[in-house]
């Protein structure tokens, strides 16, 4: 079975470590915050200028001056700090964020990522995504493995305009956890009940399968 959105978030959360500063993109990445393991301290960075993002506010706590990068009202966690946008991206560009999780339309065997623009359709912009992929060493891309029509999103070459070049090393899809190195995809884990054959069939870029591929554990 392909992973649900919640399971994708749960699997990403297994990559968290105590003391990590983490930037979570909009969508599935945001859900990762719900699965931070008990007893682990993780601080969430929101690129509009908040380190130590808390949960959503109650009605009584809503503050128009306190939002996250998705423009949602939020609260601050204990030990939070506030800064301007230049400082925020100094953290990101300077490689100070330990883990970045974001979505994509396509990735390819050379670690290229396309996530912000489909030509001919409405172009909304890259927001902070280009800075995040260029600045972070440890990035996990979360995405569906293929389109509804079975067209692979893990390619030998991205077809859409790039968000970043040669910067992605790990991809978690609804079918598989994949590492990118030496110009190839490497299959690390498969979703429970999903066969290696199924993954191979839906991966257009070269996929290396070494030995038995373990199932993800939840």
């Amino acid at each position, binding site marked *: 079975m392909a992973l649900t959105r919640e399971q994708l978030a749960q699997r990403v959360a297994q990559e968290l470590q105590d003391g990590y500063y983490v930037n979570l993109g909009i969508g599935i990445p945001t859900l990762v915050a719900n699965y931070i393991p008990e007893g682990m301290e993780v601080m969430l960075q*929101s*690129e*509009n*200028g*908040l380190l130590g993002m808390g*949960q*959503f*506010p*109650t*009605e*009584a706590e*809503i*503050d*128009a*001056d*306190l*939002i*996250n990068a*998705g*423009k*949602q*009202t*939020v609260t*601050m966690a204990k030990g939070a700090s*506030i*800064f*301007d*946008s*230049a400082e*925020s*991206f100094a953290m*990101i*560009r300077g490689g100070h964020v330990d883990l970045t999780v974001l979505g994509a339309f396509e990735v390819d065997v050379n670690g*290229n990522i396309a996530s912000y*623009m489909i030509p001919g359709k*409405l*172009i*909304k*912009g*890259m*927001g*902070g*995504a*280009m*800075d995040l992929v*260029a*600045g972070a060493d440890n990035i996990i891309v979360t995405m569906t493995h293929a389109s509804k029509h079975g067209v692979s999103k893990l390619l030998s070459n991205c077809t859409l*305009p*790039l*968000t*970043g*070049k*040669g910067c992605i090393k790990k991809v978690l899809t609804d079918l598989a956890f994949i590492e990118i190195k030496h110009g190839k995809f490497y299959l690390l884990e498969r979703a429970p009940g999903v066969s290696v054959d199924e993954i191979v069939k839906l991966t257009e870029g070269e996929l290396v399968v070494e030995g038995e591929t373990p199932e993800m554990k939840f």
Partner: protein
Amino acid sequence: MAGFDKVVSSYEEAMAGLEDNMTVIAGGFGLCGIPENLISEIKRKGTTGLTVVSNNCGVDDFGLGILLPKRQIKKIIASYVGENAEFERQMMNGELEVELTPQGTLAEKMRAGGAGIPAFFTATGYGTPVAEGKEEREFDGRHYILEPAIKGDFAIVKAWKADRYGNLVFRKTARNFNPMAATAGKITVVEVEEIVEPGELDPDQIHTPGIYVNRLILGTFEKRIEQRTVRSDT
């Protein structure tokens, strides 16, 4: 006005001198920390042909979006746009020029503009459409592109508190692009929720020193929320 007193008493005075085809840098992220009354004054004045530099472009009836119906904006430099129907229509019809700029690059362009740095190298955007036509250089085996700084004829800024000398304090994430915008305008206009006397703000707590500020005005703010998200109170 005398000495270092930057306070003006009307929005008309605050935006005096803004002319057609000028460049305006605006603070704010989404609708948070936007200089909402200064934007309304630009609408009222009817200035057109503007190049606007801002992370976003408001929504249909609030923020920079209100400058769209009368085509007051010729070009926008932003990282994320299209939260409003009129913007989408003008962009698709080629009536509005849009220069998409990565968010961190945009912040740094403003910072550099205000700090006398004409351009800077960044890895952000290398190998993407953003790099087209830009100088590339390698440092320690990594690729970077040269990004020019941005300066504005006007900068419009929203702060929380100020003293009459224009020393500014921002509140929570309403700070965002405002401090950089404040440094990058030939004329920087700031609207605030409270003005106090010089000496009343703790010098250690000032985010933007008054040297960057030319005009200061006291406003009242709607502070509209774009994505009201709550948890159930358990």
